[in-house]
């Protein structure tokens, strides 16, 4: 059994390395992105083998799912930028990545005539041969040094005993949630700030294009979304709640809700109302602001920032996680849609 598992591990690692290699060596960007998503899903299996179901969940939802969606929509945007509609006099019409899977009739007709038109933008030059061996030497040498270093390390228990000893006062029954929202809550707060900052950064680069009405993409997708949306919301809330005693938590829940939002924006049959930018700004910041505001209590009452009173730890953690989930989901959808709302500049 042990040998079989070892064989599985070796095959999995070889598969991961092979997929990563094929992904980075690809000259077709679409293929590279699909391989990267595959890589993320294989990683999730590896995390299960390393007894980390929480991370596997997060990897599948965030690492493969959300990153994959962002990568695909980026490819779609690049395609529109590099293939401006021929015959148009002015600058190319604003690409609407969300609507691009149906496009307008002209584009469709042209694409049908010239099947390769879209793919030219998504290919890239192969790696030049010059400097191949020095790069191999650098990275190979680094890998060998790293492995040699890792081979010298012995098996320490890490901080597991310390966490186990303090679980009863953490307010939750799940080790990772206790670390994320109590023992190392500062990391988590800064991580929320990082998600927010990515959104702010993307907004600072420019406006997103107006969300236009578009022809209905057939009955299947909207129907499926209508079916899946409630399920996704229930799943998100379940993950949020389960985080206190089992794998799950704010980030996984936020990713699921964000994915639901992305699906909704893909399936929208008519133009969506552009949300009020003020509400949007407050929405994406609310999670971190709430976290910090509750944490200030500890600063004044002692002993330090982000201290939860013992008997209130569980409700406080749940409130914070709820705020974080909503802000994360909102930011992820905003990142998918692209730049800031044009109404913000009005």
């Amino acid at each position, binding site marked *: 059994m042990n040998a079989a598992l070892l064989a599985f591990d070796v095959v999995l*690692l070889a598969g991961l*390395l092979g997929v*990563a290699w094929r*992904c*980075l*060596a*690809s000259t077709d960007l679409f293929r*590279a*992105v699909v391989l*990267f998503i595959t*890589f993320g899903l294989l*990683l999730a299996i590896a*995390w299960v*083998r*390393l007894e*980390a179901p*929480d*991370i596997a969940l997060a*990897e599948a939802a*965030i*690492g493969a799912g*959300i*990153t994959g969606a*962002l990568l695909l929509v*980026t*490819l779609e945007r*690049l395609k529109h*930028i*590099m293939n401006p509609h021929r015959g148009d006099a002015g600058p190319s019409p604003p690409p609407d990545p969300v609507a691009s899977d149906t496009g307008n009739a002209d584009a469709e007709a042209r694409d049908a005539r010239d099947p390769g038109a879209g793919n030219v933008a998504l290919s*890239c030059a192969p790696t030049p041969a010059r400097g191949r061996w020095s*790069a191999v030497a*650098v*990275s190979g040498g*680094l*890998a060998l040094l*790293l*492995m040699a270093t*890792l081979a010298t390390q012995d*098996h320490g*228990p*890490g*901080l*597991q005993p*310390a*966490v186990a000893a303090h679980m009863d006062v953490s307010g939750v029954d799940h*080790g*990772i949630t*206790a670390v*994320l929202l109590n023992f*190392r809550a500062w*990391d988590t707060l800064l*991580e929320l700030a*990082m998600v927010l*900052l990515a959104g702010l*950064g*993307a907004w600072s*680069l*420019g406006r997103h294009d107006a969300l236009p009405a578009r022809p209905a993409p057939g009955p299947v997708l909207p129907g499926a979304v209508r079916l899946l949306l409630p399920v996704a919301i229930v799943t998100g809330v379940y993950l949020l709640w389960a985080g206190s005693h089992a794998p799950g938590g704010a980030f996984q829940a936020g990713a699921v809700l964000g994915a639901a939002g992305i699906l909704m924006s893909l399936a929208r049959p008519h133009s969506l109302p552009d949300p009020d930018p003020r509400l949007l700004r407050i929405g994406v910041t609310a999670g971190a602001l709430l976290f910090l505001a509750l944490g200030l209590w500890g600063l004044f009452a002692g002993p330090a920032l982000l201290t939860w009173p013992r008997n209130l730890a569980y409700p406080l953690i749940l409130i914070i996680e709820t705020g974080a989930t909503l802000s994360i989901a909102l930011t992820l959808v905003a*990142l998918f849609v*692209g730049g800031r709302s044009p109404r913000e500049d009005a």
Partner: protein
Amino acid sequence: MIESLDPGTLYPFGGAALFALGLHGLIRRRHLILRILAVNIMGSGVFMVFLGIAARGDAPPDPVAQALTLTGIVVAVSATAFALALTVHLARLTGHAVLLPGPLRTHRGNRPEDP
């Protein structure tokens, strides 16, 4: 030998290999999408080292290292999202998404005709 190769010992080696593979891609490839993917693969390598360390030995897995990885994944996806937005922005300005020559080689920073 086989007993000593529990996943916690084996996977960090894989993580080191992934890190180096990603670095290789980052140095060698020019297209920004591929470079961003390379950085993500490097990140996955680091996470694999962390999770391997968490699972070493017979004790239950170390929740701290796992929590750090979770944080790391979210930080990585944030940085990736911003990098992709910047790529699109660059492509709108220049019409391509390739950095030539790369940041790890030479650069053209001082064109005299710049306004």
